[in-house]
């Protein structure tokens, strides 16, 4: 077991962390798969409204890489396909037919002895979208050979779904998923855990267990890779969401599609809890737990998540909803405020500032200003990358310099804290994404 300690970073103590117990909720009737959750794809639909789909049936494929198809995450009928501007597909909503799901036959063809077998299995059952890659944070190209595979079971983001709790009874499937994923690479299979969680994984030699310590973003795969096996130019690393492991595991070992997933709902404006739910779940089933009307519902965490409506759905790679208040308050001379419990800052800029559990709102807490490098980003960015210089090379559109400064190692989520602390209210994640886009479309 390798141990890494991340010193730079910050755990945002936002209130509304779910305690480790489940609350009952009605079963989901609708789920959605949104092509918007996947970077750099050109989706081509294979279904239309009213079609009947079985579990795992292909819903759409990527025109750039037609081998990659997206599985239906439920059995039932396509109830609605929502289009956005220029007919981009926003949501493919499926009405679940529970009987169909129960009566689905297991996949009989399950030869998983070699790498080709595993690849074929993933290909035939439309499972590629579960595997993403760095750089670019996109669905993998099946023809690539990754230098290693990494899975993080140590999510450190605020109000994160605690996988050591929500995956508690799925040990066998986790091991099954990992053992088959290992076949996809000649390199190592890294699994990041926190403390003594998932200690059963240490029994398996094919897993390189990494124990991470320290504040967010210590659980991000980008940060862990930067320490254990840095990503260089022309290299690719594959990764799978920790919460997706049981789904893959159950398919590998039993041949059964089971898209159930334990999700967490947290945040200052909601009664926090865990729910037995499924991938692509709709939020409105949980609206009873809202504590106020004027809220922003976020699929994912408050740093990198996506804003959704009350009847919006959980993103494909997300395993939690976060809810914060939409605030429109304009405090009188707020910049003169002495402090107190209504202020949260990583700077020591407020007297008696409440750093234990703070009710964050959607306020930006300041106007956008020209960037002033007060050493704030660097304090919460633990990689050996000069993030400030990198951001400037991106603004200057200098691809060579971006590559030299290590843009491939970064992703939006790794710099989300930089945006959080920035007194100039810059969006560093958007800058990094802009740089990655520039490089991606240049090639």
């Amino acid at each position: 077991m390798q141990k890494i300690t991340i010193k730079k970073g910050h755990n945002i103590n936002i209130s509304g962390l779910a305690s480790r117990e489940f609350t009952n909720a009605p079963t989901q009737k609708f789920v959605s798969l949104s092509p918007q959750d996947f970077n750099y794809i050109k989706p081509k639909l294979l279904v239309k409204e009213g079609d009947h789909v079985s579990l795992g049936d292909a819903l759409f494929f990527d025109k750039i890489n037609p081998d990659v198809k997206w599985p239906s995450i439920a059995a039932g009928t396509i109830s609605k396909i929502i289009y956005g501007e220029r007919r981009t597909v926003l949501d493919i909503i499926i009405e679940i037919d529970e009987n169909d799901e129960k009566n689905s036959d297991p996949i009989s063809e399950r030869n998983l002895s070699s790498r080709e077998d595993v690849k074929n299995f993933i290909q035939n059952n439309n499972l590629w979208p579960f595997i993403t890659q760095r750089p670019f944070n996109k669905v993998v190209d099946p023809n690539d050979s990754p230098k290693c595979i990494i899975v993080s079971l140590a999510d450190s983001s605020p109000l994160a779904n605690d996988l050591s709790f929500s995956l508690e009874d799925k040990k066998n499937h986790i091991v099954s998923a990992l053992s088959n994923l290992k076949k996809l690479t000649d390199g190592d299979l890294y699994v990041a855990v926190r403390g003594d969680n998932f200690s059963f994984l240490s029994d398996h030699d094919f897993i390189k267990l990494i124990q991470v310590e320290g504040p967010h973003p210590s659980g991000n795969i980008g940060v862990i890779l930067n320490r254990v096996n840095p990503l260089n130019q022309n290299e690719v690393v594959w990764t799978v969401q920790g919460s997706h492991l049981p789904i893959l595991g159950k398919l590998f070992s039993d041949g059964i599609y089971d898209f159930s997933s334990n999700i967490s709902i947290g945040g200052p404006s909601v009664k926090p809890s865990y729910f037995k739910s499924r991938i692509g779940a709709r939020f409105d089933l949980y609206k009873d737990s809202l504590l106020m009307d004027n809220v922003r519902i976020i699929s994912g965490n408050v740093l990198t998540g996506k804003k959704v409506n009350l009847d919006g759905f959980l993103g494909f790679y997300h395993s939690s909803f976060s809810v914060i208040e939409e605030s429109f308050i304009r405090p009188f001379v707020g910049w003169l405020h002495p402090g107190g419990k209504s202020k949260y800052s990583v700077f020591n800029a407020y007297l008696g500032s409440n750093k234990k559990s703070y009710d964050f709102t959607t306020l930006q807490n300041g106007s956008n200003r020209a960037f002033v490098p007060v050493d704030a980003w660097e304090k919460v960015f633990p990689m050996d990358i000069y993030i400030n210089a990198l951001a400037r090379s991106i603004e200057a559109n200098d691809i060579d310099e971006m590559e030299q400064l290590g843009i491939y190692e970064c992703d939006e989520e790794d710099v989300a804290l930089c945006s959080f602390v920035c007194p100039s209210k810059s969006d560093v994640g958007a800058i990094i994404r802009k740089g990655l886009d520039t490089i991606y479309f240049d090639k």
Partner: protein
Amino acid sequence: MNFLRKIFEETGKFVEEGKPLSWAYPVWEAADTIFFSTNKQTSKGPHIRDNMDIKRTMFFVVIALIPCYLFGAYNIGYLNALAMEIDRGLFANTIFGFTYVLPILIATFVAGAVCELTFAIIRKHEVNEGFLVSCALIPLTMPPDVPLWQVFIGTSFGIIIGKEIFGGVGTNIFNPALTSRAFMYFAFPTKISGDKVWAVGPDGYSGATALAIPANPVEYDTASNLFAANTQFDFSTMNMFWGLIPGSIGETNKLFILLGAIFLIYCGIASWRIMVSSVLGLVFTALLFNLLNYFTVDGILLAGGSPNAMLTITPLQHILIGSFLFGTVFMATEPVTSSHTNTGRWIYGFLIGVLTVIIRSINPAYPEGVFLAILIMNMFAPLIDYYVVQANIKMRLSRHV
């Protein structure tokens, strides 16, 4: 409060886009967000943000300067009373001082605001609070009896040439406050060249500042002896620390400058690396010069030439005389014009310390070297950063064999 809010909402309608007065939007926005914090919301991730913003950051630097203002005003009154041979008391001394400080402050802010707002309107950018810090710093670098028209011109020069022609806050190369100080130094040398005494006294009142004493000694001696021999002012170490000596308004009291430094470091606004490394650089160079002046080869000083009393100033005296501490704490740490990498900050600060002593001791023209040292290093900061970043690039390339 509602009434005030209403005024802003009503006047805001006149500066909306498309309205004839829309050019005045930056001015309206500045006033509006000074009175009421913005309710701008996040649109996407991160959905939550820290409570620190640029307004508060800049405001904190101004807070750190307030003790220097108070003491500066008192010191003007104190030195005046000393020259007039009267006894006035603490309060009256401070009031007397403020009759000199306030006009300078007002002249600076008027000049600064006019320049900043004009450029905000022309360039259509929002008014950046950074100019408040520049304007708060400039009076502290002035002699108390500086003519106000000079302050006005100096400030305008600093804001426009030091900042706005480079694109405003965030892209400027030179510290605007120091640019204006340097401009005035060379444009109006009779007023602030630094060797005449900087105090308000009766007509014809003159004397030498601490730096001028070893720079122009009547007869060579060590700096400590020269200080001790001066009868006009008490240049003892303790007194120079407490700041009851002539000098720029804000530079003399070292305790209050240190308090400001601790405050800024604690809040995480100013870089402690720059402050520490520039003191190290100064101590290193001063000791080196002390040594050079001590050793002789065949009766000739290693330092060469005639004996130079400036070389005998001890590191502690270097820190206490002139505006070294003030410049280090408030000017060198200006985030935009200093180095942007932590390694770079160490080098940048160290070289400021080195250059300060070199300019003070070896250059015969200017007794004070801090502002020149900082401006020179402002110029080199991007170069330092370039090499620091190149080292990181080489590391990344070497990993990728």
